[in-house]
Protein backbone atom coordinates (compact mmCIF):
# COMPACT_ATOMS: atom_id res chain seq x y z
CA UNK A 1 0.00 0.00 0.00
CA UNK A 2 1.19 3.50 -0.84
CA UNK A 3 -0.15 6.36 1.21
CA UNK A 4 0.50 10.03 0.38
CA UNK A 5 -0.54 12.42 3.15
CA UNK A 6 -0.38 16.19 2.44
CA UNK A 7 2.66 15.72 0.20
CA UNK A 8 4.31 18.80 -1.30
CA UNK A 9 7.31 18.85 -3.57
CA UNK A 10 9.20 22.06 -4.33
CA UNK A 11 12.25 21.89 -6.60
CA UNK A 12 15.38 23.81 -5.52
CA UNK A 13 14.58 26.48 -8.15
CA UNK A 14 11.28 27.17 -6.36
CA UNK A 15 9.06 25.30 -8.83
CA UNK A 16 6.13 23.63 -7.06
CA UNK A 17 5.87 20.20 -8.69
CA UNK A 18 3.40 18.60 -6.29
CA UNK A 19 0.77 20.40 -4.22
CA UNK A 20 -1.03 18.84 -1.28
CA UNK A 21 -1.23 15.30 -2.61
CA UNK A 22 -3.46 12.93 -0.63
CA UNK A 23 -3.63 9.53 -2.23
CA UNK A 24 -3.87 5.88 -1.27
CA UNK A 25 -2.90 3.14 -3.71
CA UNK A 26 -3.98 -0.34 -2.65
CA UNK A 27 -2.10 -3.58 -3.18
CA UNK A 28 -2.89 -5.20 -6.49
CA UNK A 29 -4.04 -1.98 -8.16
CA UNK A 30 -3.07 -1.17 -11.75
CA UNK A 31 -2.85 2.60 -11.58
CA UNK A 32 -2.25 4.83 -14.57
CA UNK A 33 -1.32 8.46 -14.00
CA UNK A 34 -2.30 10.75 -16.86
CA UNK A 35 -1.70 14.44 -17.45
CA UNK A 36 0.10 16.98 -19.62
CA UNK A 37 3.89 17.00 -19.94
CA UNK A 38 5.26 18.87 -16.94
CA UNK A 39 2.11 18.32 -14.87
CA UNK A 40 4.09 16.36 -12.28
CA UNK A 41 3.42 12.74 -13.33
CA UNK A 42 7.08 11.79 -13.28
CA UNK A 43 7.73 13.64 -10.04
CA UNK A 44 4.79 11.90 -8.36
CA UNK A 45 6.01 8.50 -9.51
CA UNK A 46 9.61 9.11 -8.52
CA UNK A 47 8.76 10.23 -5.00
CA UNK A 48 7.40 6.73 -4.34
CA UNK A 49 10.90 5.21 -4.33
CA UNK A 50 12.54 8.47 -3.27
CA UNK A 51 14.39 9.00 -6.53
CA UNK A 52 12.95 12.46 -5.80
CA UNK A 53 12.55 13.53 -2.20
CA UNK A 54 9.36 15.20 -1.02
CA UNK A 55 9.45 18.61 0.66
CA UNK A 56 6.70 18.07 3.24
CA UNK A 57 4.01 15.61 4.21
CA UNK A 58 4.44 11.88 4.65
CA UNK A 59 4.68 9.05 2.18
CA UNK A 60 4.27 5.50 3.48
CA UNK A 61 5.22 2.65 1.15
CA UNK A 62 4.51 -0.92 2.32
CA UNK A 63 4.26 0.23 5.91
CA UNK A 64 7.51 2.27 5.94
CA UNK A 65 7.73 6.05 5.78
CA UNK A 66 10.09 6.36 2.82
CA UNK A 67 10.37 10.15 3.10
CA UNK A 68 12.24 9.69 6.39
CA UNK A 69 14.22 6.61 5.32
CA UNK A 70 17.91 7.02 4.65
CA UNK A 71 20.94 4.89 3.77
CA UNK A 72 20.50 1.17 4.33
CA UNK A 73 16.82 1.47 5.31
CA UNK A 74 16.04 3.36 2.08
CA UNK A 75 17.88 0.79 -0.05
CA UNK A 76 15.97 -2.03 1.63
CA UNK A 77 12.67 -0.34 0.76
CA UNK A 78 13.86 0.31 -2.80
CA UNK A 79 14.79 -3.29 -3.49
CA UNK A 80 11.12 -4.22 -3.06
CA UNK A 81 10.13 -1.66 -5.70
CA UNK A 82 10.83 -2.35 -9.35
CA UNK A 83 11.20 0.55 -11.77
CA UNK A 84 10.72 0.73 -15.53
CA UNK A 85 11.91 3.67 -17.62
CA UNK A 86 10.98 5.18 -20.97
CA UNK A 87 14.47 4.55 -22.39
CA UNK A 88 14.75 1.06 -20.77
CA UNK A 89 17.99 2.03 -18.95
CA UNK A 90 19.81 -1.22 -19.63
CA UNK A 91 23.58 -1.59 -19.65
CA UNK A 92 23.95 -1.87 -23.42
CA UNK A 93 27.34 -3.54 -23.32
CA UNK A 94 26.31 -6.30 -20.91
CA UNK A 95 24.35 -9.44 -21.68
CA UNK A 96 20.62 -9.62 -21.06
CA UNK A 97 21.28 -12.12 -18.26
CA UNK A 98 23.68 -9.76 -16.48
CA UNK A 99 21.21 -6.92 -16.82
CA UNK A 100 18.46 -9.01 -15.26
CA UNK A 101 20.72 -10.27 -12.45
CA UNK A 102 21.50 -6.64 -11.62
CA UNK A 103 18.05 -6.57 -10.05
CA UNK A 104 19.58 -8.56 -7.18
CA UNK A 105 22.42 -6.17 -6.18
CA UNK A 106 20.31 -4.83 -3.32
CA UNK A 107 20.60 -8.24 -1.66
CA UNK A 108 24.39 -8.45 -1.88
CA UNK A 109 27.48 -6.89 -0.35
CA UNK A 110 29.65 -4.58 -2.46
CA UNK A 111 32.31 -7.30 -2.68
CA UNK A 112 29.81 -9.85 -3.99
CA UNK A 113 28.45 -7.32 -6.49
CA UNK A 114 31.88 -6.41 -7.87
CA UNK A 115 32.81 -10.05 -8.42
CA UNK A 116 29.33 -11.07 -9.58
CA UNK A 117 28.87 -13.63 -6.81
CA UNK A 118 25.18 -14.37 -7.18
CA UNK A 119 23.67 -17.58 -5.84
CA UNK A 120 22.52 -20.36 -8.11
CA UNK A 121 18.95 -19.72 -6.97
CA UNK A 122 19.21 -16.08 -8.04
CA UNK A 123 20.60 -17.02 -11.43
CA UNK A 124 17.67 -19.36 -11.90
CA UNK A 125 15.31 -16.62 -10.76
CA UNK A 126 16.76 -14.28 -13.40
CA UNK A 127 16.33 -16.89 -16.13
CA UNK A 128 12.80 -17.66 -14.97
CA UNK A 129 11.92 -13.95 -15.13
CA UNK A 130 13.10 -13.90 -18.74
CA UNK A 131 11.09 -17.04 -19.42
CA UNK A 132 7.93 -15.45 -18.01
CA UNK A 133 8.33 -12.64 -20.54
CA UNK A 134 9.06 -15.01 -23.40
CA UNK A 135 12.63 -13.86 -24.11
CA UNK A 136 14.60 -16.68 -22.51
CA UNK A 137 16.32 -17.37 -25.85
CA UNK A 138 17.89 -13.88 -25.67
CA UNK A 139 19.49 -14.46 -22.25
CA UNK A 140 23.10 -14.44 -23.43
CA UNK A 141 22.76 -11.82 -26.15
CA UNK A 142 24.11 -8.31 -25.62
CA UNK A 143 21.30 -5.98 -24.54
CA UNK A 144 21.84 -3.51 -27.40
CA UNK A 145 21.21 -6.25 -29.97
CA UNK A 146 17.53 -6.36 -28.97
CA UNK A 147 14.58 -4.41 -30.35
CA UNK A 148 12.90 -1.75 -28.22
CA UNK A 149 10.06 -4.01 -27.14
CA UNK A 150 12.47 -6.78 -26.19
CA UNK A 151 14.63 -4.31 -24.25
CA UNK A 152 11.61 -3.15 -22.28
CA UNK A 153 10.83 -6.78 -21.48
CA UNK A 154 14.40 -7.22 -20.23
CA UNK A 155 13.81 -4.20 -17.99
CA UNK A 156 10.59 -5.84 -16.78
CA UNK A 157 12.47 -9.08 -16.12
CA UNK A 158 15.05 -7.10 -14.13
CA UNK A 159 12.22 -5.65 -12.04
CA UNK A 160 10.64 -9.11 -11.55
CA UNK A 161 14.00 -10.51 -10.41
CA UNK A 162 13.86 -8.07 -7.52
CA UNK A 163 10.75 -10.02 -6.40
CA UNK A 164 8.99 -6.70 -5.84
CA UNK A 165 5.62 -5.93 -4.33
CA UNK A 166 5.30 -2.87 -6.52
CA UNK A 167 6.49 -1.82 -9.98
CA UNK A 168 6.73 1.83 -10.98
CA UNK A 169 6.74 2.54 -14.70
CA UNK A 170 7.74 5.98 -16.01
CA UNK A 171 6.33 6.27 -19.55
CA UNK A 172 7.05 2.57 -20.21
CA UNK A 173 5.76 2.52 -23.80
CA UNK A 174 6.47 6.09 -24.94
CA UNK A 175 9.35 5.02 -27.17
CA UNK A 176 7.69 1.92 -28.65
CA UNK A 177 5.62 1.47 -31.79
CA UNK A 178 1.83 0.96 -31.38
CA UNK A 179 1.85 -2.81 -31.84
CA UNK A 180 4.78 -3.43 -29.48
CA UNK A 181 3.14 -1.00 -27.06
CA UNK A 182 0.11 -3.25 -26.75
CA UNK A 183 2.11 -6.42 -26.20
CA UNK A 184 4.28 -4.74 -23.52
CA UNK A 185 1.15 -3.40 -21.84
CA UNK A 186 -0.27 -6.93 -21.94
CA UNK A 187 2.87 -8.07 -20.09
CA UNK A 188 2.24 -5.44 -17.44
CA UNK A 189 -1.35 -6.62 -17.09
CA UNK A 190 -0.25 -10.23 -16.77
CA UNK A 191 2.36 -9.37 -14.12
CA UNK A 192 -0.27 -7.39 -12.25
CA UNK A 193 -2.79 -10.24 -12.28
CA UNK A 194 -0.65 -13.39 -12.06
CA UNK A 195 1.85 -12.23 -9.45
CA UNK A 196 -0.41 -9.70 -7.71
CA UNK A 197 2.19 -6.94 -8.10
CA UNK A 198 0.89 -3.40 -7.79
CA UNK A 199 1.65 -1.32 -10.88
CA UNK A 200 1.82 2.44 -11.04
CA UNK A 201 2.49 3.75 -14.54
CA UNK A 202 2.70 7.19 -16.15
CA UNK A 203 0.98 7.20 -19.51
CA UNK A 204 0.79 9.60 -22.42
CA UNK A 205 -1.97 7.72 -24.23
CA UNK A 206 -5.28 8.15 -22.49
CA UNK A 207 -7.08 5.33 -24.27
CA UNK A 208 -4.21 2.96 -23.47
CA UNK A 209 -4.48 3.94 -19.82
CA UNK A 210 -8.25 3.41 -19.92
CA UNK A 211 -7.86 -0.02 -21.46
CA UNK A 212 -5.33 -1.46 -19.00
CA UNK A 213 -5.70 0.38 -15.71
CA UNK A 214 -8.05 -0.50 -12.89
CA UNK A 215 -7.71 3.03 -11.63
CA UNK A 216 -6.91 6.36 -13.29
CA UNK A 217 -5.30 9.33 -11.60
CA UNK A 218 -5.42 12.63 -13.47
CA UNK A 219 -2.90 15.26 -12.52
CA UNK A 220 -2.69 18.90 -13.56
CA UNK A 221 -0.10 21.44 -12.42
CA UNK A 222 0.95 19.27 -9.50
CA UNK A 223 -2.55 18.60 -8.19
CA UNK A 224 -4.74 15.53 -8.44
CA UNK A 225 -7.81 16.59 -10.43
CA UNK A 226 -9.28 13.15 -11.03
CA UNK A 227 -9.18 9.82 -9.23
CA UNK A 228 -11.47 7.02 -10.29
CA UNK A 229 -12.10 4.00 -12.48
CA UNK A 230 -11.59 4.10 -16.27
CA UNK A 231 -15.38 4.05 -16.78
CA UNK A 232 -15.67 7.39 -15.02
CA UNK A 233 -13.33 9.16 -17.44
CA UNK A 234 -15.60 11.31 -19.58
CA UNK A 235 -14.92 14.30 -21.84
CA UNK A 236 -15.59 16.46 -18.82
CA UNK A 237 -12.77 14.65 -16.98
CA UNK A 238 -10.26 14.93 -19.83
CA UNK A 239 -11.14 18.61 -20.05
CA UNK A 240 -10.28 18.92 -16.37
CA UNK A 241 -6.94 17.17 -16.92
CA UNK A 242 -5.85 18.43 -20.34
CA UNK A 243 -7.73 21.70 -20.58
CA UNK A 244 -10.00 20.43 -23.36
CA UNK A 245 -11.67 17.24 -24.52
CA UNK A 246 -9.49 14.91 -26.59
CA UNK A 247 -10.26 14.61 -30.28
CA UNK A 248 -10.59 11.21 -31.87
CA UNK A 249 -7.38 11.78 -33.85
CA UNK A 250 -5.47 12.30 -30.61
CA UNK A 251 -6.26 8.79 -29.46
CA UNK A 252 -4.37 5.67 -30.40
CA UNK A 253 -7.32 4.21 -32.30
CA UNK A 254 -9.65 1.31 -31.66
CA UNK A 255 -7.46 -0.79 -29.40
CA UNK A 256 -9.56 -3.94 -29.56
CA UNK A 257 -8.84 -4.28 -33.27
CA UNK A 258 -5.23 -5.14 -32.39
CA UNK A 259 -6.18 -8.05 -30.14
Amino acid at each position, binding site marked *: MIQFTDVDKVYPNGYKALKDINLTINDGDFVCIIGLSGAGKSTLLRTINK*MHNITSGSLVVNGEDISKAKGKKL*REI*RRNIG*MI*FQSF*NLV*NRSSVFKNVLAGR*VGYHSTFETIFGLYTKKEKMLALQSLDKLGILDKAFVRADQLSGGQQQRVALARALTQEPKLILADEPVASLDPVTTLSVMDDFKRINKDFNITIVANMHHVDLALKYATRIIGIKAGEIVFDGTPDEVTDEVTTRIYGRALKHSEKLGDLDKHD
Partner: protein
Amino acid sequence: MTNTANGKSSQFWHKVFYRTVVVSVDDKNNPTKTIEKKRSKALLWFLLVAGIFGLSFVFINQPATIRMDQIQAIFGQMFTPSIWSLKTYDQYWAYLFSTAIPAIWDTIKMVLIGTTLGTILAFPLMLVASRNVVVSAYIYQPVRFIVDFIRTIPTYVLAILCTVFFGLGETAGTWAIAIFTLGIMFKLMYEYIDTCDMNPFEASISTGATRLKAFSVALYPQVKPMFFSNFLYTFEINIRASVILGFVGAGGIGQMLNNAMNAQQYDKVGAILIPLFVVVVCLQLLSSYLRKKSL
Protein backbone atom coordinates in the same frame (compact mmCIF):
# COMPACT_ATOMS: atom_id res chain seq x y z
CA MET B 1 27.46 63.80 -33.24
CA THR B 2 29.05 61.29 -30.92
CA ASN B 3 25.93 59.20 -31.04
CA THR B 4 25.98 58.84 -34.81
CA ALA B 5 29.70 58.07 -34.71
CA ASN B 6 29.06 55.33 -32.18
CA GLY B 7 26.18 54.00 -34.24
CA LYS B 8 28.37 53.86 -37.34
CA SER B 9 31.23 52.12 -35.59
CA SER B 10 28.96 49.56 -33.97
CA GLN B 11 27.40 48.98 -37.40
CA PHE B 12 30.89 48.41 -38.76
CA TRP B 13 31.76 45.83 -36.10
CA HIS B 14 28.42 44.16 -36.62
CA LYS B 15 29.33 43.72 -40.28
CA VAL B 16 32.72 42.35 -39.28
CA PHE B 17 31.26 39.66 -37.03
CA TYR B 18 28.07 38.81 -38.92
CA ARG B 19 27.25 38.09 -42.50
CA THR B 20 23.87 38.08 -44.19
CA VAL B 21 22.46 34.88 -45.59
CA VAL B 22 19.68 35.14 -48.17
CA VAL B 23 16.63 32.99 -47.44
CA SER B 24 14.51 33.82 -50.47
CA VAL B 25 14.60 36.15 -53.53
CA ASP B 26 11.95 37.83 -55.70
CA ASP B 27 11.83 37.43 -59.50
CA LYS B 28 14.47 40.19 -59.94
CA ASN B 29 16.85 38.24 -57.69
CA ASN B 30 16.60 40.84 -54.93
CA PRO B 31 16.61 39.28 -51.48
CA THR B 32 13.19 39.37 -49.84
CA LYS B 33 14.14 37.65 -46.64
CA THR B 34 17.53 37.36 -44.97
CA ILE B 35 18.96 36.07 -41.70
CA GLU B 36 22.29 36.81 -40.07
CA LYS B 37 24.97 34.27 -39.36
CA LYS B 38 28.00 34.70 -37.16
CA ARG B 39 31.13 34.68 -39.31
CA SER B 40 33.49 31.76 -38.85
CA LYS B 41 36.55 32.71 -36.84
CA ALA B 42 38.73 30.10 -38.55
CA LEU B 43 40.62 32.68 -40.64
CA LEU B 44 41.32 34.79 -37.56
CA TRP B 45 42.73 31.78 -35.70
CA PHE B 46 44.77 30.74 -38.72
CA LEU B 47 46.34 34.19 -39.00
CA LEU B 48 47.07 34.24 -35.28
CA VAL B 49 48.77 30.84 -35.30
CA ALA B 50 50.69 31.64 -38.51
CA GLY B 51 51.78 34.95 -36.98
CA ILE B 52 53.11 33.31 -33.83
CA PHE B 53 54.81 30.66 -35.94
CA GLY B 54 56.44 33.31 -38.15
CA LEU B 55 57.52 35.44 -35.21
CA SER B 56 59.10 32.47 -33.47
CA PHE B 57 61.37 32.03 -36.49
CA VAL B 58 62.40 35.67 -36.26
CA PHE B 59 63.23 35.48 -32.57
CA ILE B 60 65.02 32.15 -32.54
CA ASN B 61 68.65 32.99 -33.16
CA GLN B 62 69.64 29.72 -34.73
CA PRO B 63 69.53 29.21 -38.47
CA ALA B 64 66.77 26.84 -39.49
CA THR B 65 69.03 24.41 -41.28
CA ILE B 66 69.01 20.63 -40.92
CA ARG B 67 72.35 18.90 -40.83
CA MET B 68 71.61 16.08 -43.23
CA ASP B 69 75.18 14.74 -43.11
CA GLN B 70 74.91 14.20 -39.34
CA ILE B 71 71.57 12.42 -39.64
CA GLN B 72 72.97 10.17 -42.33
CA ALA B 73 76.09 9.41 -40.30
CA ILE B 74 74.26 8.61 -37.06
CA PHE B 75 71.53 6.51 -38.67
CA GLY B 76 74.15 4.67 -40.69
CA GLN B 77 76.14 3.84 -37.59
CA MET B 78 73.10 2.71 -35.65
CA PHE B 79 72.58 -0.39 -37.74
CA THR B 80 76.15 -1.35 -38.59
CA PRO B 81 79.14 -2.32 -36.47
CA SER B 82 81.74 0.44 -36.19
CA ILE B 83 85.44 0.48 -35.51
CA TRP B 84 84.85 2.23 -32.14
CA SER B 85 82.83 -0.33 -30.22
CA LEU B 86 81.16 -3.38 -31.77
CA LYS B 87 83.70 -4.29 -34.40
CA THR B 88 81.92 -7.08 -36.27
CA TYR B 89 78.33 -8.17 -36.99
CA ASP B 90 78.93 -11.12 -34.64
CA GLN B 91 79.69 -8.68 -31.86
CA TYR B 92 76.68 -6.54 -32.89
CA TRP B 93 74.26 -9.48 -32.67
CA ALA B 94 75.85 -10.72 -29.46
CA TYR B 95 75.38 -7.28 -27.92
CA LEU B 96 71.81 -7.10 -29.20
CA PHE B 97 70.76 -10.49 -27.84
CA SER B 98 72.82 -10.88 -24.68
CA THR B 99 72.91 -7.30 -23.42
CA ALA B 100 70.30 -5.04 -25.05
CA ILE B 101 67.30 -7.40 -25.12
CA PRO B 102 67.69 -8.71 -21.54
CA ALA B 103 68.03 -5.10 -20.37
CA ILE B 104 64.86 -4.16 -22.21
CA TRP B 105 63.11 -7.19 -20.74
CA ASP B 106 64.08 -5.99 -17.25
CA THR B 107 62.78 -2.56 -18.15
CA ILE B 108 59.48 -3.99 -19.36
CA LYS B 109 59.09 -5.85 -16.07
CA MET B 110 59.78 -2.66 -14.13
CA VAL B 111 57.34 -0.66 -16.26
CA LEU B 112 54.68 -3.37 -16.00
CA ILE B 113 54.84 -3.43 -12.20
CA GLY B 114 54.93 0.37 -12.01
CA THR B 115 52.02 0.83 -14.43
CA THR B 116 49.92 -1.80 -12.65
CA LEU B 117 50.66 -0.28 -9.26
CA GLY B 118 49.79 3.21 -10.52
CA THR B 119 46.55 1.97 -12.09
CA ILE B 120 45.50 0.24 -8.87
CA LEU B 121 46.19 3.45 -6.96
CA ALA B 122 44.35 5.53 -9.58
CA PHE B 123 41.19 3.39 -9.56
CA PRO B 124 39.59 4.56 -6.28
CA LEU B 125 40.71 8.13 -6.97
CA MET B 126 39.10 8.22 -10.43
CA LEU B 127 35.82 7.09 -8.87
CA VAL B 128 35.98 9.82 -6.26
CA ALA B 129 36.83 12.38 -8.97
CA SER B 130 33.89 11.56 -11.28
CA ARG B 131 31.10 14.02 -10.76
CA ASN B 132 28.41 11.50 -11.65
CA VAL B 133 29.54 8.89 -9.13
CA VAL B 134 30.43 11.29 -6.32
CA VAL B 135 27.96 14.14 -6.61
CA SER B 136 29.52 16.55 -4.13
CA ALA B 137 31.86 19.11 -5.71
CA TYR B 138 33.42 19.53 -2.26
CA ILE B 139 34.85 16.04 -2.69
CA TYR B 140 35.65 15.65 -6.37
CA GLN B 141 37.16 19.11 -6.95
CA PRO B 142 39.89 18.81 -4.27
CA VAL B 143 40.73 15.28 -5.44
CA ARG B 144 41.04 16.51 -9.03
CA PHE B 145 43.17 19.44 -7.90
CA ILE B 146 45.60 17.29 -5.92
CA VAL B 147 46.10 14.65 -8.60
CA ASP B 148 46.32 17.32 -11.33
CA PHE B 149 49.05 18.91 -9.26
CA ILE B 150 50.94 15.60 -9.07
CA ARG B 151 50.63 15.32 -12.85
CA THR B 152 52.37 18.66 -13.42
CA ILE B 153 55.63 17.28 -11.96
CA PRO B 154 57.87 16.52 -14.96
CA THR B 155 58.93 12.88 -15.29
CA TYR B 156 62.58 13.86 -14.93
CA VAL B 157 61.96 15.61 -11.60
CA LEU B 158 59.76 12.75 -10.43
CA ALA B 159 62.56 10.28 -11.20
CA ILE B 160 65.11 12.33 -9.26
CA LEU B 161 62.73 12.66 -6.29
CA CYS B 162 62.16 8.90 -6.30
CA THR B 163 65.89 8.15 -6.30
CA VAL B 164 66.14 10.42 -3.26
CA PHE B 165 63.29 8.62 -1.48
CA PHE B 166 64.02 5.03 -2.50
CA GLY B 167 67.72 5.05 -3.41
CA LEU B 168 69.26 4.37 -6.80
CA GLY B 169 67.87 1.43 -8.75
CA GLU B 170 64.68 -0.11 -10.01
CA THR B 171 62.54 0.46 -6.92
CA ALA B 172 62.84 4.20 -7.54
CA GLY B 173 61.99 3.68 -11.21
CA THR B 174 58.96 1.55 -10.37
CA TRP B 175 57.57 4.21 -8.03
CA ALA B 176 58.29 7.03 -10.46
CA ILE B 177 56.33 5.14 -13.13
CA ALA B 178 53.53 4.35 -10.66
CA ILE B 179 53.07 8.02 -9.77
CA PHE B 180 53.31 9.06 -13.41
CA THR B 181 50.69 6.42 -14.34
CA LEU B 182 48.44 7.53 -11.50
CA GLY B 183 48.28 11.00 -13.03
CA ILE B 184 47.57 9.89 -16.60
CA MET B 185 45.08 7.09 -15.85
CA PHE B 186 43.29 9.31 -13.36
CA LYS B 187 42.78 12.12 -15.87
CA LEU B 188 41.84 9.91 -18.83
CA MET B 189 39.42 7.78 -16.84
CA TYR B 190 37.53 10.28 -14.70
CA GLU B 191 36.80 12.33 -17.80
CA TYR B 192 35.54 9.20 -19.52
CA ILE B 193 33.39 8.15 -16.55
CA ASP B 194 31.87 11.65 -16.61
CA THR B 195 30.55 11.02 -20.14
CA CYS B 196 29.01 7.58 -19.42
CA ASP B 197 25.34 6.80 -19.99
CA MET B 198 23.80 7.41 -16.56
CA ASN B 199 20.41 5.78 -17.28
CA PRO B 200 21.41 2.26 -16.18
CA PHE B 201 23.05 3.81 -13.11
CA GLU B 202 19.74 5.42 -12.19
CA ALA B 203 17.99 2.09 -12.75
CA SER B 204 20.45 0.35 -10.46
CA ILE B 205 19.97 2.95 -7.72
CA SER B 206 16.22 2.34 -8.01
CA THR B 207 16.72 -1.36 -7.21
CA GLY B 208 18.32 -0.41 -3.91
CA ALA B 209 21.99 -0.39 -4.86
CA THR B 210 24.59 1.90 -3.26
CA ARG B 211 26.41 4.27 -5.61
CA LEU B 212 29.48 2.00 -5.57
CA LYS B 213 27.42 -1.09 -6.44
CA ALA B 214 25.58 0.85 -9.14
CA PHE B 215 28.96 1.87 -10.56
CA SER B 216 30.19 -1.71 -10.68
CA VAL B 217 26.98 -2.99 -12.28
CA ALA B 218 26.02 -0.13 -14.61
CA LEU B 219 29.09 2.02 -15.35
CA TYR B 220 32.05 -0.35 -15.11
CA PRO B 221 30.88 -2.41 -18.15
CA GLN B 222 30.84 0.85 -20.13
CA VAL B 223 34.23 1.94 -18.81
CA LYS B 224 36.03 -1.43 -19.06
CA PRO B 225 37.24 -1.38 -22.71
CA MET B 226 38.51 2.18 -22.34
CA PHE B 227 40.16 1.21 -19.08
CA PHE B 228 42.24 -1.55 -20.65
CA SER B 229 42.97 0.47 -23.74
CA ASN B 230 44.22 3.38 -21.63
CA PHE B 231 46.23 0.98 -19.49
CA LEU B 232 48.09 -0.23 -22.59
CA TYR B 233 48.50 3.33 -23.86
CA THR B 234 49.99 4.40 -20.52
CA PHE B 235 52.18 1.29 -20.52
CA GLU B 236 53.53 2.28 -23.92
CA ILE B 237 54.22 5.87 -22.82
CA ASN B 238 55.97 4.50 -19.74
CA ILE B 239 58.27 2.28 -21.83
CA ARG B 240 59.55 5.40 -23.55
CA ALA B 241 59.59 7.43 -20.35
CA SER B 242 61.64 4.71 -18.66
CA VAL B 243 64.61 5.77 -20.80
CA ILE B 244 64.65 9.08 -18.93
CA LEU B 245 64.55 7.22 -15.60
CA GLY B 246 67.81 5.52 -16.49
CA PHE B 247 69.51 8.87 -17.08
CA VAL B 248 69.17 9.69 -13.38
CA GLY B 249 69.97 6.20 -12.15
CA ALA B 250 66.44 5.02 -11.46
CA GLY B 251 66.85 1.72 -13.28
CA GLY B 252 65.96 0.61 -16.78
CA ILE B 253 67.79 0.82 -20.10
CA GLY B 254 68.30 4.57 -19.87
CA GLN B 255 71.65 4.19 -18.12
CA MET B 256 72.96 1.91 -20.85
CA LEU B 257 71.60 4.18 -23.58
CA ASN B 258 73.08 7.26 -21.96
CA ASN B 259 76.53 5.67 -21.69
CA ALA B 260 76.44 4.61 -25.33
CA MET B 261 75.35 8.06 -26.50
CA ASN B 262 77.95 9.87 -24.45
CA ALA B 263 80.64 7.62 -25.90
CA GLN B 264 79.14 8.21 -29.38
CA GLN B 265 78.76 4.44 -29.80
CA TYR B 266 75.77 4.75 -32.08
CA ASP B 267 75.83 1.07 -33.00
CA LYS B 268 75.06 0.24 -29.37
CA VAL B 269 72.36 2.92 -29.35
CA GLY B 270 70.87 1.25 -32.42
CA ALA B 271 71.02 -2.21 -30.81
CA ILE B 272 69.03 -0.85 -27.86
CA LEU B 273 66.53 1.18 -29.91
CA ILE B 274 65.60 -1.58 -32.38
CA PRO B 275 64.04 -3.95 -29.81
CA LEU B 276 62.51 -0.96 -28.03
CA PHE B 277 60.86 0.04 -31.29
CA VAL B 278 59.56 -3.50 -31.77
CA VAL B 279 58.07 -3.52 -28.26
CA VAL B 280 56.32 -0.17 -28.75
CA VAL B 281 54.87 -1.21 -32.11
CA CYS B 282 53.62 -4.52 -30.66
CA LEU B 283 51.94 -2.67 -27.81
CA GLN B 284 50.27 -0.31 -30.23
CA LEU B 285 48.96 -3.20 -32.31
CA LEU B 286 47.69 -4.98 -29.21
CA SER B 287 45.96 -1.88 -27.90
CA SER B 288 44.24 -1.05 -31.19
CA TYR B 289 43.20 -4.71 -31.55
CA LEU B 290 41.68 -4.78 -28.06
CA ARG B 291 39.93 -1.47 -28.62
CA LYS B 292 38.41 -2.66 -31.89
CA LYS B 293 37.37 -5.96 -30.37
CA SER B 294 35.71 -4.41 -27.36
CA LEU B 295 33.78 -1.61 -29.06
